[in-house]
């Protein structure tokens, strides 16, 4: 079924999804159904397949089998335009802070400068507008990447460990931005292995281990009474392999 602009994006439905790299199975028979708005957090230890799943959900990678459907439609460019993705390591262009946002806003036409200034203010980067983007600190770079993703007015925002290795002040600002974005009705799917961040932000949690989804439940239930041994061990701070 072709996607239709204006139709809701949710539910996100993943069925029997497998992804292999050579002989290794990185994602194994993933089934997931997300229909609620708010922030869905995908958690799990390193190598669980969280980032890979996010890329497939956004249509950047093709799985060998299985399917991903947004409101019943398979991924295409029209659907991807309605989403924004922020990578763990922000990919910033060799331009100024403002020019990085303008790159996305200009083709959309209209009063793009006003919108850019508003986005930079929201991200706390108004004073750095003219600085080379790649000379910003890690936290500022991530905030810029988030502001650029928001520039397209996405209906779903996908984030891959946006706060990994950045300072706590930037983490706080990013989390505030994410809460504001959630309030505006944008669906957020956040990959993290930071248990504290998941506690603070999650409405529901997807727990992954070794390429499989072991749990998907409302955040309160997941943190109070995780079902799987691996999730319990993970929340207790044990090293799981």
């Amino acid at each position: 079924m072709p996607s239709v602009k204006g139709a809701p994006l949710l539910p996100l439905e993943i069925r029997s999804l497998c992804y292999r790299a050579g002989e290794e199975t990185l994602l194994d028979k993933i089934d997931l159904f997300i229909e609620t708005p708010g922030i869905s957090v995908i958690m799990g230890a390193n190598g669980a397949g969280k980032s890979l799943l996010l890329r497939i959900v956004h249509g950047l990678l093709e799985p060998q089998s299985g399917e991903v459907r947004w409101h019943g439609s398979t991924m295409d460019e029209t659907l991807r335009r309605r989403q924004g993705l922020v990578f763990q390591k922000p990919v910033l262009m060799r331009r100024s802070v403002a020019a990085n946002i303008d790159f996305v806003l200009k083709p959309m036409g209209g009063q793009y400068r006003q919108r850019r200034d508003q986005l930079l203010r929201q991200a706390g980067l108004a004073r750095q507008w003219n600085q080379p983007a790649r000379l910003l600190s890690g936290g500022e770079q991530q905030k810029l990447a988030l502001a650029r993703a928001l520039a397209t007015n996405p209906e779903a925002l996908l984030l891959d460990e946006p706060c990994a290795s950045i300072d706590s002040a930037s983490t706080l600002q990013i989390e505030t931005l994410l809460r504001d974005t959630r309030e505006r009705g944008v669906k957020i799917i956040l990959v993290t292995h930071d248990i504290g961040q998941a506690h603070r932000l999650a409405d529901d949690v997807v727990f992954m281990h070794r390429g499989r989804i072991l749990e998907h439940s409302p955040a309160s239930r997941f943190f109070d009474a995780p079902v799987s041994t691996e999730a319990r061990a993970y929340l207790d701070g044990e090293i799981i392999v």
Partner: protein
Amino acid sequence: MQDFSAAFGLAASLIIGFDADLIEIIALSLRVSLCAVLLSALIGFPLGALTAVLAFPGRQAIAVIMNALMGLPPVVVGLLVYMALSRAGPLGWMNLLYSPTAMILAQTILVTPIIAALSRQVMEDMHREYDEQFRSLCIPTRRVMTALIWDSRYSLLTVSLAGFGRAIAEVGAVIIVGGNIDHLTRVMTTAIALETSKGNLALALALGFVLLILALSVNAAVYSLRASAKRLSYA
């Protein structure tokens, strides 16, 4: 040794004295080579970006051909352009043989593969970095190409410099299609070749020094521009 010291002295006196003939030769050399580099950049940058971005059958073969053409022998290019522009050739009606335009044409053919191949390498590396972000933002191919050209502009300056080096130092092609006509198509390299054949080694060497100074000056200017761009993390 005497030749070298005489050449140094002669070069200095030619430069300091603003020798009219020398200025004319330098101006024509710069005009021909810079025009050729500009034309090559106009062709080579988009070609480099296209082969860096688009995945199509035969892309590797094109990359190999572009790399191979970097070593085009100037005399062969000169001969081909000569045949095309001579009266009996397909472009003979344009009456361009033995003119600066013919020299520009020959140098453009020589320099374009260098600029296209090197810029493809630069932009392929950058595209690898930007690719997922661009696909996520659904940026159309044409915009991807222009973004890559703009974002790699300082590296492309160095690429153009390599092309300029090839053009300004080249003698085989320009002497065939230009004819080394005094006050019309005589450039630094053809003048050096002429003075050497006449046994006027000091003047030939002096012209060689001037050529070296020219190449050094252009290199230094581009290097300092690139260094300041690097400080801003734009390069």
